[in-house]
């Protein structure tokens, strides 16, 4: 990135008399969640054109022609909505400029959807194997009870809808090459990241020795049931053990289904209880480093009065109650917080909320991750992290 910027800046200096400052663009790029740089040659063209569009970016005009023609806020178009079960659907998304297909199987991606004028963000596991040649990727969404956005995505999203995309992330990934012996233990929609891993293994044509213990609800509601069974039929190395959710799979069942679990590198994704059991079990066997866990973020951000505030860039952590504003908490911890009117009108103190939830002290509204918040009138609602 820095090499590209450097190259572009040097070339630009030769091209225009008013060369130099790209600070405004740089700041925008940092401030936005965009993935940013494209190829160096495209980058150079953009910077030259930016001389004409300043203080905006060329992308700010181009996305009015085609919503996908911008790398400032990466967008994607939903090309298909495939119903999987009664309450789950796969969204096939054609990403626009700035998207990179070098994500790893098992990672999740943040998807922003405009609902009643507001961009709401949630993260979902990518279920497709990374395939740049197909120019699209898929996420599978399960409608949560009370989940406003997931319900909208599963039932209300029309093909053609433009969504926003964050950078794929997460450490729950399949290494390349994969270990010779694997164990997947999944529960319910916890199968989604593992699905991307299995599809990747199939695509590469090198299925290692895999045991997959999967606990799912009744057949009609079970995600990817047919595809998993077909896999088991086609690949002798892939053994699928299905369990009903009516009788939860416990660690004892796992030992019976996969007696050689100690010899396998394990990936576990499912309900909180199952993850706790697995963590405990592997740790007691002294095999904690062979276990990979994925906890969905929803369980990480329980709302509460007050909580632990992490000031990410300043590397400070402070406990605060539900009546202390983030601004006061930050100042108390010696963080250089931006501030203004201290009464919620001037928006000088806005900083990005990276994760967790905060509560508006004026009206009790809860704001969740991925948005700018006014620190002078918000307090922690559970643990949260802000980018300052």
């Amino acid at each position: 990135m820095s090499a590209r910027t450097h190259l572009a800046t040097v070339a630009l200096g030769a091209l225009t008399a008013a060369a130099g400052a790209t600070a405004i663009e740089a700041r925008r790029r940092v401030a936005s969640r965009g993935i940013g740089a494209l190829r160096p040659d495209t980058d150079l063209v953009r910077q030259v054109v930016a001389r004409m569009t300043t203080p905006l970016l060329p992308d700010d005009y181009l996305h009015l022609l085609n919503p996908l023609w911008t790398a400032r806020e990466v967008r994607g178009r939903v090309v298909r909505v495939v119903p999987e079960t009664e309450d789950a659907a796969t969204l096939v998304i054609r990403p626009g400029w700035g998207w990179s297909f070098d994500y790893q199987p098992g990672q999740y991606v943040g998807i922003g959807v405009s609902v009643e004028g507001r961009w709401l963000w949630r993260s979902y596991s990518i279920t497709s194997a990374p395939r740049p040649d197909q120019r699209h990727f898929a996420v599978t969404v399960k409608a949560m009870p009370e989940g406003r956005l997931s319900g909208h995505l599963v039932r209300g999203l029309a093909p053609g809808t433009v969504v926003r995309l964050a950078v794929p992330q997460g450490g729950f990934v399949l290494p390349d090459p994969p270990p010779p012996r694997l164990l997947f233990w999944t529960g319910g929609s916890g199968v989604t990241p593992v699905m991307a891993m299995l599809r990747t293994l199939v695509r590469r044509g090198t299925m290692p020795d895999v045991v997959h213990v999967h606990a799912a609800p009744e057949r009609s509601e079970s995600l990817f049931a047919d595809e998993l069974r077909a896999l088991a039929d086609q690949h002798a190395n892939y053994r699928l053990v299905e369990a009903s959710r009516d009788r939860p799979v416990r660690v004892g069942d796992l030992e019976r289904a996969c007696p050689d679990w100690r010899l396998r590198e394990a990936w576990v994704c499912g309900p909180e209880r199952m993850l706790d059991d697995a963590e405990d079990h592997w740790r007691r066997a002294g095999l904690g480093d062979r276990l990979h866990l994925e906890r969905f973020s929803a369980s990480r951000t329980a709302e509460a009065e007050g909580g632990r505030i992490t000031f990410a860039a300043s590397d400070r952590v402070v406990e605060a109650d539900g009546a202390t504003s983030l601004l006061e908490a930050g100042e108390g911890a010696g963080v250089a917080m931006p501030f203004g009117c201290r009464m919620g009108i001037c928006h000088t103190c806005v900083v990005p909320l990276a994760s967790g939830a905060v509560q508006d002290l004026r009206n009790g509204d809860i704001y969740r991750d991925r948005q700018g918040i006014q620190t002078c009138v918000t307090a922690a609602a559970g643990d949260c992290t802000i980018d300052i």
Partner: protein
Amino acid sequence: MAIGNVKEFAHLTDEQVEDLGRRFDAIRSSIEADLGSRDARYIRNLIRVQRRLVVAARVTLFASAFPPAWVAGTGLLAVAKILENMEIGHNVMHGQWDWMNDPEIHSGTWEWDTTCPAEGWKHSHNYVHHTFTNVLGKDNDVGYGILRVRPEQPWHPFNLGQPVYNALLALLFEWGVALHDLDIEAIRKRRKDPAETRRQLKVIWRKVRRQVGKDYLVFPLLSGPAFASTVTANATANLIRNLWSYMIIFCGHFPDGAEVFLEEELEGEQRPQWYLRQLLGAANFEGGRLLHVMSGSLGYQIEHHLFPDLPSNRYPEIAAQVRELCRTYRLPYTIGPLHRQYGQTLRTLLKLSLPGSSSQRRRRGEGRRAPRATIEELRRYDGPMAPQAAVS
């Protein structure tokens, strides 16, 4: 309560002031609760229209050697710059659209099409001016450090040149705004850290270079043989924008009826008193929808000061509620046609270039004390912004 000493508010009891505060809060929450797709469509459409105007103007000006194209292109560009600076940029930077959670239309990231960097503007305007509105010695917008706009400001022989400074400020308004946050007065009185001044100048210089480069180098070069006519067209568009925004902005706080405050009147100020100060410190002007959009909704200066971060497309409905409150509580609400508001501003500027009336505190309707609203009248009042009704 110090603001109770202000004559316009002397008829209010403490309870009435508190009650007013609650009613203003209720207007805010009812609007906030109602924000949705309709509002998002308004700002997105406006931005789309504005960007199309820019493209149309720039393309037309490639032919600016041909006089009709010069006129059309200049007009389009002036309108585009006015829309961007006033109804879009100024309001976005106030955080009016932050609720959409769209980083492309957000106070934290917006940079506007003028030489003033967003960072300096947000400090001098959103924070200093909107928090300490019209407080002498604290709000630099009272005369912008070069004009005497209030009789309370002491006269100095320097003020004799006021008609000239005023004309220059109108013509070069964009540059005045760019340098405003430097606070020249503080630099002159050595109240400011030179390192901070240098840092600010660097930020301003970076922005100026890009803006000037675009209008006076890049586009003229792209026009080839029409280089000179593109330069004059762009300069004229910038000038039209300067004159227009100067006039609109000078009608916000300088017409008769908009009052200033002393620092001691801030003593013990809470939210309700802050609302009252905003109400008395600002002046509206009348006009159709198009005039209001072209003036960045600053014809609703009073509503803008009461709720600077509520979306500007909501000001007309907020204004109806605020006027109703002012009638009920017998509070002044300053409004008039644009020409009268500007005429009063100009008259004040000329009058105050000469010495006189410096120690005297002039108040609207002197000697005419508004009668106290009776309990009976307040009880009868149950408009749409009554706190109970709006909150439920």
